[in-house]
């Protein structure tokens, strides 16, 4: 898979619900439409939560990958 460049990185590792979502919202607000946010989290609940959040807000969850319990999400701002 080719690496997609991100415009902003957000580290939510070690944080629990609902902080990864709240911090993602704040980060996405600071971006322009079409820009990419890369968020990393260790909360296993963030996988389903990020999907729901993206569905609701209309931002695009471009990809989700997991490596040694760290989840990486790429989100494109709508």
């Amino acid at each position, binding site marked *: 898979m080719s690496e997609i460049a991100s415009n902003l990185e957000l580290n939510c590792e070690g*944080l*629990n619900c*609902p902080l990864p*979502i*709240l911090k993602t919202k704040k980060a996405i607000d600071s971006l322009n439409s079409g820009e990419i946010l890369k968020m990393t989290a260790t909360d296993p609940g963030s996988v389903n939560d990020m999907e729901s959040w993206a569905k609701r807000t209309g931002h695009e969850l471009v990809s989700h990958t997991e490596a040694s319990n760290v989840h990486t999400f790429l989100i494109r701002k709508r």
Partner: protein
Amino acid sequence: MADTKKLAIIASQGTLDWAYPPFILASTAAAMDMEAVIFFTFYGLPLLKKEIDAKVSPHTNPAMPMKMPFGSKDFQSINWPVPNVISGNIPGFDNMATMLMKETFKKKGVATIEQLRGMCQEFGVRFIACQMTMEVFGFEKEEFIDGVEYGGAATFLEYAADADISLFI
């Protein structure tokens, strides 16, 4: 989005454990581009005070796990059985349980109530304080944080009538 969803919450409990759900749900709703209102009434009202002094009481939560936030993983998973006759009668037991809960939450990366409340305000969640409860319990507006609205049952219901989600907590 054209059709903005609305969340209406009544926060009626002021202990540390019950303080979480209203602020978690309202801040998350706002993060999901929904409108959110929390109406604070009865014991929920002190959650609007500048300094939140919420405690947890194991005595009134018989199913509450009593666990230690330190030590090995096995030690931390032990559920300490504390009979009500002890938890309800030992002075300072609630303070100890509150300290343990706060410490556990911190270790698990859970936000504090103050942090969640601040994010609610930052995201535009509206806080309405029940005027009647203020009179009954003798609270003054000066004791509360800035940005609070004041009203009664009709104020809440006017908003809740058009809400998509209504919760009594």
